[in-house]
């Protein structure tokens, strides 16, 4: 029964940004379901609320209205410590501008989620194994030779690969990718999408990717379009989830 339920679901999400007296409604009742092992693309024009939706799904922000469920458990109203832990252990983030920490090497950047999640004592106890794990991950994304380079010494594609390795170090259940190819040329963009596709297929990693590049969405399982703060795709019904919750 659980296999039929979405791993991640958004129900009637509303989000409005306010600046002084001006209100900008970004999401106006988004319903979305993401199933385990799925590679979902969210597309839409600039300002359609794609990134906002991704941030809400990843508990980086709270909706004004509506709910977000992870494995049928509501997560949008959790205390901040639990939301921090979710972002550390359950969700992995990759961003358009890579967002690597410039003071750290590639290896240290990849290890950062581990350092955040573990106590100093446990870190020192497990650091050799963790470094080995990070090195293997960087090998897998093709950066085995760039372990001790600082982000400024890497190309855009390499930085995004490092960011993917960082997102994967804690073996997340869902990878949330915000325009991962937005800052890369076409070839590098395709390489990144192939990498994500491989991760999705080989590791059954659930991926939610926000993009406005229609060329790359063909590699994903499903495409959802956001228009004016709502999901346009009629096929994306959450009736199953709603029936299970009300039932």
């Amino acid at each position, binding site marked *: 029964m659980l296999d039929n339920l979405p791993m991640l679901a958004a129900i009637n999400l509303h989000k409005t940004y306010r600046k002084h007296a001006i209100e900008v409604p970004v999401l106006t009742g988004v319903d979305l379901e993401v199933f385990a092992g799925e590679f979902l693309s969210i597309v839409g024009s600039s300002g359609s609320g794609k990134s*906002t939706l991704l*941030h809400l799904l*990843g508990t*980086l*922000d709270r909706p004004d209205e509506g709910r977000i469920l992870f494995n049928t458990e509501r997560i949008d109203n959790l205390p*901040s*410590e639990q939301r*921090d*832990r*979710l*972002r*550390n*252990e359950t969700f992995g*983030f990759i*961003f358009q501008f890579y*967002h*690597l*920490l*410039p*003071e*750290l090497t590639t290896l*240290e950047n990849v290890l*950062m*989620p581990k*350092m*955040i*999640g*573990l*106590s*100093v004592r446990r*870190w*020192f106890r497990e650091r050799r194994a963790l470094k080995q794990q990070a090195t293997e991950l960087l090998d897998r994304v093709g950066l085995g030779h760039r372990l001790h380079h600082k982000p400024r010494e890497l190309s855009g594609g390499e930085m995004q690969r490092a960011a993917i390795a*960082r997102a994967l170090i804690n073996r997340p259940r869902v990878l949330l990718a915000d325009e991962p190819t937005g800052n890369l040329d076409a070839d590098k963009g395709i390489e990144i999408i192939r990498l994500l596709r491989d991760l999705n297929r080989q590791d059954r990693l659930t991926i939610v990717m926000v993009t406005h590049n229609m060329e790359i969405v063909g590699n994903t399982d499903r495409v959802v379009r956001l228009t004016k703060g709502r999901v346009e795709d009629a096929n994306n019904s959450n009736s199953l989830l709603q029936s299970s919750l009300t039932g």
Partner: protein
Amino acid sequence: MYKLLLCWRYLLTRYLALVCIVSVMLGVATLIVVNSVMAGFSTKLRERLHGLLSDIVIEAHDFQGFANPQGKIALIQSDPFLSQRIEAMTPTLEIFGMIQFNCNGTAIARPVHIIGIDPVGRARVGGFAEHLLLHKGQPTFELSPEALQHQRSLHPPHRLDRIADILAPQPIDGKPAPEPPPRTEAPPSTIILGYAIAHFRAKLQPDGAPEEVRTLGPGDDVILTTISGHGLKPVEWRCAVCDYFKSEMSEYDANYVFVPIEELQRLRAMPDRATSIQIRIKDYRDLHAVKEGLQKLLPAHWELSVHTWEDKQGPLLAAISIEKGILNVLLFMIIAVAGFGILAIFSMIVVEKTRDIGILKALGASNRGVLNIFLSYGLLLGAVGALLGSAIGTTITLYINEIEQFLTKWTGHELFDRSVYYFNEIPTDLSVSSVLIINVGAIAIAVLFSVLPALRAALLHPVRALRYE
């Protein structure tokens, strides 16, 4: 772990933070040097005062003094409580007066404080003997052979001999004159001069460092003038300089002269009288108990007052303590200024690191974690600054005299005027506890001033931080 790593990396990569370190370092170094020098002065001053004043003084209210000091000493010794606690006692007779002497043909006169003492007794109650320049540790009013020779050269006996020969009885009627009484040479009165009365500092060469010039050598004559004990008639007598008293306290070295108590009693027509009894006690912890014991023992009609040395120098010691306190407050304000620097620079760093803060939060860092990064950063900056400041401050304190000599040579201006205190060197008292307190204070200020930017960082909204450009 990430907090420590980021703290460390921020310290190594943000050169702006070096400004914070330098300001904390300078504040700490200054505080340590000033504190050590102030403490050094204070300790030395206390030592000198204590050494000079003895532990307890029983004083008369006027210059007439009191009669029978030995009887009073005997009375005190008869008290079992006091006799067990008192180590030594000696009477002194003190009076103001004037000293006159000749320096290179110029007659000089200056007011002095004349103290009649028994040198051995005085040495037992305080640090008198150690401050003597020529007879250090062996207090005496005797002239050294060289000084005696010099004194005789000033007053050649042959003149007297000639007069004596003229006045000698002549043979009468062929009978030899009766033998004159044997001629005894009365030893001259002697005096121990305050060092600054007999010396001054002057630049002998236009470009040279100031040097000490002696105006009165051992065996030189001085004339002392004071008043007698009865009728306030002026009394004057000639003395030969036998030693110098160098306590390194300008007030004493420039004003005090010591003469034998018996001589002062005789000249002032005050036999068996004294103005004070100096007392040294065995255990300093009994100071106040002995004082109270003496107050109870001495009858009120004797009109004698009992003071500890701290009572006598209370205002001076309090002034030093207040000065030290005020200086500390002022200098801590320097570190507070450094704190505002930390506040400004940290605020800039937080703005600069806004996106990194968003990344950390996206990766699961808590608000408290981000707060701790910046608080630890403040702590680290404070600690590094304090550590470097301690090293510099301690080094300056330990080599302050060498530094002062170098600067004096370099600038041609004497930074530490030895004629003010007559300290041979700048006294310092480097205390581990005060260095620790300064360090803790500086680090606390650094952390305190990083709280605001750290809170700002911690409360940054992750999405807004990620979108920050």
